[in-house]
C-alpha cells in the first residue's frame, strides 16, 4: 500500500498538511526573523552641516561660543545631545571651530579673555587660543570641527556615530 503508485487518502492528507504547515511556517517565520534583526539593518551614521549664523557676526581674533542641539531617535526613545563650540575667525576670514570638550576627561572648557586661554575647571588644563595644550593633563589639543562658509553663513560639520 505504502509503495503503490496510487496516492492513498492518508498519504494525500499528510502531504497537504505538510505543505500547508510549511507555507504557514515560512509566512510567519521569515517576517519574525526580519522583525528581530530590523534595528540591526538601519546602520545609520548621521552627519549634518549645522548653520551657525553669519560669519560677520563673529568677532575677529576672539573665540566666540556657539551652542546647538542634535536629536537622536533610537526606537521609542529620543535623546537630545547638546553641543558647544568656540568659533575663532582671523583677519583673512579663516575659521577654526573648536569643541569645548576637554580632551582629558570630557569637562567643558571656557575661554578666558584675560589670559587668552581655554581653561578646564576640572583639572586646571590650559589650552592656547589655537587649541594647543599649554599646561595640565590633556593628551592632545582641543578637537576641531570641519567648517565652511556658504553665502556668508558659517556651517559646522557634525558627524555622529
Amino acid at each position: 500500500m505504502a509503495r503503490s503508485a496510487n496516492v492513498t487518502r492518508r498519504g494525500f492528507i499528510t502531504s497537504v498538511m505538510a505543505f500547508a504547515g510549511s507555507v504557514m511556517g515560512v509566512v510567519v517565520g521569515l517576517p519574525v526573523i526580519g522583525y528581530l534583526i530590523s534595528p540591526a539593518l538601519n546602520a545609520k551614521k548621521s552627519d549634518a552641516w549645522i548653520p551657525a549664523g553669519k560669519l560677520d557676526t563673529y568677532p575677529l581674533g576672539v573665540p566666540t561660543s556657539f551652542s546647538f542641539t542634535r536629536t537622536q531617535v533610537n526606537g521609542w526613545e529620543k535623546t537630545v545631545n547638546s553641543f558647544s563650540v568656540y568659533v575663532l575667525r582671523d583677519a583673512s576670514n579663516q575659521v577654526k571651530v573648536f569643541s569645548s570638550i576637554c580632551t582629558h576627561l570630557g569637562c567643558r572648557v571656557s575661554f578666558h579673555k584675560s589670559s587668552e586661554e581655554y581653561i578646564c575647571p576640572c583639572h586646571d588644563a590650559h589650552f592656547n587660543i589655537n587649541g594647543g595644550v599649554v599646561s595640565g593633563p590633556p593628551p592632545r589639543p582641543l578637537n576641531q570641527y570641519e567648517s565652511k562658509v556658504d553665502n556668508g553663513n558659517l556651517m559646522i560639520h557634525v558627524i555622529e556615530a
Partner: protein
Amino acid sequence: MISKRMFPWLDERLGISGIYKTIFDRMVPKVNWWFTLGSATLFLFALQVVTGIMLSVYYVPSPDKAYDSIQYIMNGVAFGWLIRGIHHWGATLMVITVFLHMLRVFFYAAYKYPREITWTTGVLLLLATLGMGFTGYLLPWDQKAYWATTVGTSIAGAVPGIGDFILRALRGGNDLSGVTLARFFSAHIWMFPLIIIALIGVHLYLVIRIGISSIPKENE
C-alpha cells in the same frame, strides 16, 4: 539516507514513535468538523505565544513608553504591523473558537462521565482566555485601553462587601496607574500563560487518556 538508520537508533532510546502513536494514531469515533475546534484553539494559542514573545522584544510596560513603543513596533520595525496584527486578531479568534468549542461539548453532552475533569479544566481555560483578553487590552495604553480598563475594574468593584478590595487589588491602588499597567503586563505574559499551559496539559492528557466521545444517537 542517514536518517533511515538514525531514526530507529533514536527511537529505541527516546520512544518517539510510541509518543506519536499515542497522540496521533489513537482511536476516534466518526465525528464532524465541530470536533476540530479544540485543535484550532491550541493552534491559535501557540500562535499567540510566538507573536506575544516577539512583541515583548520591543514593548515597554511603562506609562510614558508603552504607547510610543507600540508606535515603533507598528511603524519602525520590519513586519511589526504583521506580528501585532496576528496577535490582535488571533486573540479575538481564540475567544471565538474557545466559545464554539464549549458549545460543541455542551450540545453533544461530552462533559458527562467520565469527562467531568476535562470539562472543568476547559471552563477554567475559558476563564483564563478571557483573563488574557482583559489584561492584554490595557497594554496598548491608549484612550480605549485606559477607559475600558477603568470601566472593567469598576465593574469588578461593584461586588458587594469586598468590591473595593477587589478594585484596589486589580488596579494596584485606588486609581488606574503605571502600577496597574505593570501588573496587567505581568499577568498577561507570566501568570495567565503559565496557568493556561498547565491546564492545557491536563486537558490534553485527559482527551488522550479517555478518548473523545462520539456524537449522541437517538436511542441512547
